[in-house]
Each structure stands twice: as C-alpha cells, then as structure tokens.
C-alpha cells in the first residue's frame, strides 16, 4: 500500500526547511570555536552575528538583546531563575510572580517547584476558549509583583493571549513582562519592543530551524543573571561553546519566517479551516476546542474532540495510515490525567481524553487535508462501535 506520511504535528516540532539544512550543512566549515581569536574562530563568530541580526529582525529588537541557548525551556527556566534570585536577595519589596494555568510545562513545572519551596506565585485562570480574562489578570497585579509571564500562543488549543495588554498591566504596577512566544513565531507577528516585552523565549525547531537551539531576548534595562555559569560566551550571559551550525540554522529560519509571515499565516488558516469543516461534515458530533475567533487562534492549530473515541487509539489508528497527530488523552502522557491545558480551559474530562490536535506547517498541502478527511471518519466510526458508549 502507499507509504504516504501526512505530518500534522508541527506544534510539536517541524521539519527543517531546505534552506536551513543547506546552511547548517555549509556551517561544517565553520568549525572554529567562535570564542577563538584566529581566523576560523572569527569566521564562526561572524556567522553567529549574522544569525543574531536575523533573529533580532524577526522579533523586533536590537541585535545585542539576543542570547542564544538550547531552546525555550532553557529560556523560560532562566527567566524564573532571575526572579527567584531577586526575591531571595530582597532587591525590592516585590515577592510575587504572576503567570497562567496554561503555560508550557517548562513554566508549569518550574512554578510547582518554586511554590513547594515557598515562593508566592499566582496562576491566572482562562475562559472556555483558553484565553486569559484581562479583568482577572488586572486583579492579580499589585505593587508586590516582580514578574508577569504569559505565553503568546498556546501549543495545544492554539489560543492567542492578549499579551500586549498584559504587558501594559504589568508595567503599570512596575513588574517585568515575559512572554514565551515559541508557538507564535512565524505564524503571527511578534514584536518585542513594540509590545514592550522585557523577556521573550523562542525555540528554533518550532519554525523549521534546528532542534536544540533557541533564544532568550532580554530588554535593555531588564535584570539578568546567567542560568549556566562558566564561560564568557554571549558576554558572559550564557556559558557553553557556541553551537555554530544550529545558530546559523535558526538565523536562516528566522529570515524565512519573516519573509513568509503573511503568506504562511493565511495558508495555514485555510488548511486548518478546510480540515475543520471537512471533519465536522464527515463525522457526527465532534467538538472543536479552544477559541473560534480567528484573531484569537494560531492559524495552523486545530484541536478537536471525538466523544466515545479515546485519543491514543485515534492517534495510533491515524499513525497506521501515516497521519501524525498528537492527543490530550491521559494514555499518551503516561499519567492518569488528560491535558491540563484542556482541563484548565473548562473542557470536559471525557472530551479531553478524546482530543486530537492537528497542527499544520509549511509543508502541508490541501491534498494532505483531503487524505485526512478520507481516512479519519471510518476510524472514529470503528472506535465508537467498539466503545462502551
């Protein structure tokens, strides 16, 4: 039979763009240590500085504000570590952090850990569409808040948060603002300076760059201390020998993302809508999770629940057809609880167990959508017939 693969897990990670692969491949000649004074070292350094400018241009900040690291998980941990230190050192009277219930695990787990240690952290709830209510957020602000951290767009539901407004609320009470923009890059405009973010996290592999490389952008007057000590790289802000090839790759990926932003946004949204309509017509009683207003949702994300069919089983039957998706079901997570993002968004626990996330990317086509619309209805019908209800 056919060996067709339809990759619809682009919020999980993406395939590297050809242009990126080429650039990473050519970077093999840049093997000199970018910290060395000799010619090969200087060449590597020059390539890194080009990449720095490319990323800075994509997210609207100055070239010098970019710190390269291993990815957004490191970026997020670094930001929380800075404020943990500030609270410990009693720099000022600010002892509280405000975030949300739907952040990425690298923040959710850090928050759990810090709370256990006795730090004061408030997690703002979200409404049925997965969006933070600005009135509730405003009530959480105060003169004791040191940091506000809210993701730009959610990885599961695709819901976009009102981060510009939240940044204004944070600044109005004198707090710093961090956003994890990992899922938003390349899909919607992200502008660090214009939005007034003090910190911004991103990962290369979510927008066709290499895995294992990311960025923390830090605004000029925002406090900083290194998470990894022991080297003078990045002006002593992040230790560890430069991953030159990956940094070159994330630079090229940034240029592509910037160049194609508008076109990609519209293309992804059209594919998403085509699939949503197709599945809603072909399969009885499906539920679309997350926001419905196109302005509030990342264009390539579609999270749906199929009552009476369980997520892991759907995922694996789809996989047998070469369709690659992810699920919010507990079974796929190795825990007994389904996705905390869906539960926090008020989605019924049974629906969370039967949820599937389709996430589109640059290499998906309308043919892919047609293939899913052809293959999926019999799978759901089969599982429903097998089900106790």
């Amino acid at each position, binding site marked *: 039979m056919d060996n067709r693969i339809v990759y619809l897990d682009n919020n999980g990670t993406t395939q590297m763009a050809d242009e990126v692969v080429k650039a990473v491949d050519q970077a093999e000649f840049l093997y000199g240590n970018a910290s060395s004074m000799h010619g090969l070292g200087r060449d590597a350094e020059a390539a890194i500085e080009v990449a720095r400018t490319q990323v800075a241009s994509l997210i609207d900040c100055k070239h010098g504000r970019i710190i390269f690291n291993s990815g957004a998980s490191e970026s997020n941990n670094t930001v929380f570590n800075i404020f943990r230190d500030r609270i410990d050192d009693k720099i000022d009277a600010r002892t509280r952090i405000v975030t949300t219930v739907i952040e990425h695990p690298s923040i959710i787990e850090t928050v759990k850990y810090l709370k256990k240690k006795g730090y004061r952290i408030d997690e703002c709830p979200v409404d049925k569409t997965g969006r933070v209510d600005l009135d509730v957020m405003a009530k959480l602000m105060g003169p004791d808040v040191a940091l506000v951290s809210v993701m730009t767009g959610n990885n599961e539901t695709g819901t976009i948060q009102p981060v510009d407004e939240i940044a204004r609320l944070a600044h109005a009470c004198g707090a710093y603002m961090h956003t994890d923009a990992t899922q938003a890059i390349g899909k919607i405009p992200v502008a660090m300076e214009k939005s007034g973010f003090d910190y911004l996290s991103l990962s290369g592999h979510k927008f066709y760059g290499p895995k294992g490389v990311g960025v923390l952008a830090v605004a000029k007057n925002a406090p900083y201390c290194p998470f990894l000590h022991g080297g003078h790289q990045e002006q002593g802000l992040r230790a560890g020998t430069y991953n030159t090839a990956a940094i070159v790759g994330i630079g090229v990926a940034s240029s592509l993302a910037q160049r194609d932003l508008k076109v990609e946004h519209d293309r992804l949204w059209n594919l998403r809508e085509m699939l949503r309509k197709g599945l809603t017509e072909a399969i009885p009683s499906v539920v679309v999770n997350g926001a419905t207003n196109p302005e509030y949702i990342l264009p390539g994300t579609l999270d749906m629940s199929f009552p009476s069919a369980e997520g*892991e089983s759907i995922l694996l039957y789809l996989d*047998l057809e070469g369709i690659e998706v992810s699920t919010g079901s507990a079974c796929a997570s190795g825990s007994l609880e389904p996705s905390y993002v869906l539960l926090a968004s008020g989605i019924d626990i049974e629906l969370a167990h039967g949820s599937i996330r389709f996430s589109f990317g640059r290499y998906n086509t309308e043919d892919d959508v047609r293939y899913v619309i052809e293959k999926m209805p019999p799978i759901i019908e089969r599982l429903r017939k097998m089900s106790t209800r």
Partner: protein
Amino acid sequence: MSNSFMSNWVYTPIVKEHFMNPHHLWKEEDNFEPNGIGEVGSLACGDQMRVGILVKDDKIKDLKWLTYGCASAIASTSMMSDIAIGMTLDQAYHITPTMITEALGGLPEHKFHCSVLGDKALRAAIDDYLEKNKMPNPYKNSIAKIICECKNVTDMQIEELVKSGKAKTLEDLQQLTGYGTGCGKCKAQVQDLFEDFKHIYSK
C-alpha cells in the same frame, strides 16, 4: 495499513495485531444474548470495559466485549477474551492482569495498572451471572490477598470499599479497615492499590 517507519511500534506485535483486529468484539448485529454482564472503569478516567458472558455447564461458552480506551486497553480485553472462552468459571475467575500482559508479549509499566481491566470486568460478569441465577459465589474470596497483616485487610476488601464508594479517601479506608495502624509496613502498598482502584472505579 502499513507504513515504512524504521522504528518498532509503540507496543509489541501481538498488541498491534489485537488492536488492529480485535477478537470477539460485541457487535450490535451479532444479537449476542449474554447471561452475565460486568463493567469496570469510566469514561472520565479514560478506560471503560463491558464484558458479556454466555455461561453454559459452568463454562464460558462465549464472551463479547466493548472497550473505550487506549490501544493497550483494547488489545488486553481482546486477549482476555481469547484466554477466557472455554474456561470453567473457576479458571476464568482467576485470570490475572499478569497472564493477559504476558500473553500480549508485555506492556509498558505505566499501562499495566490503568489499561488491563478485562479480568476485572470478566469477574464482575461472573459475579453478575451467579447473582442473577441465585447461585453461591465461591470465588469472590478465593483470590483475596492479605495486604495489611496486622489488621488482616485484603486487596479484595479494599477493592470493594472503593468500588462501593464507602472509602472515598485513604482516611475513610483507614477508619473502615484499620490498615496501617499496626506496624505500618503496608501503607505504601495500600496507597498504590487505593489509587489504582480509584482510577478504575471512580465515576
């Protein structure tokens, strides 16, 4: 239905076979008329099984099942049906999750507790059959294992108390059974069992 991925599948080839082509599925058009039905799990916990048995001459003559759950839940119920059909009630009552898992060629550790529920649904069906026919149930206590030696508390007791909703918390369970109030060595095991049964029976 095959793709040329280089890696092994998530589960063993036997699990895959049962997942793709489950045995003894309870189809509407079969007009199957069981004389005992058992159900465990709930949609909220992500796994639910219903087992219908046709008992004749003290043997499982036929068995059909429905499952809402993950691939290993589907495969393990299917495997249970293969094992159980033809067995005497006594034998069938003593099918364990380990027997099912071994027959499947193994399951990941975290799947063993939450997804292998077929044996419990089958026992519930046998209980139902005996009760409906007003027959004595000699099996119910035969598979009990003592967990708390000081207070003589068995796993079956704990299962019953959780299933009936009498023990909603570990504190309830301790008040009802006195487990862990002697040497206290059983506490961790009771806690694990309690969590497992809560997962299976909480509605």
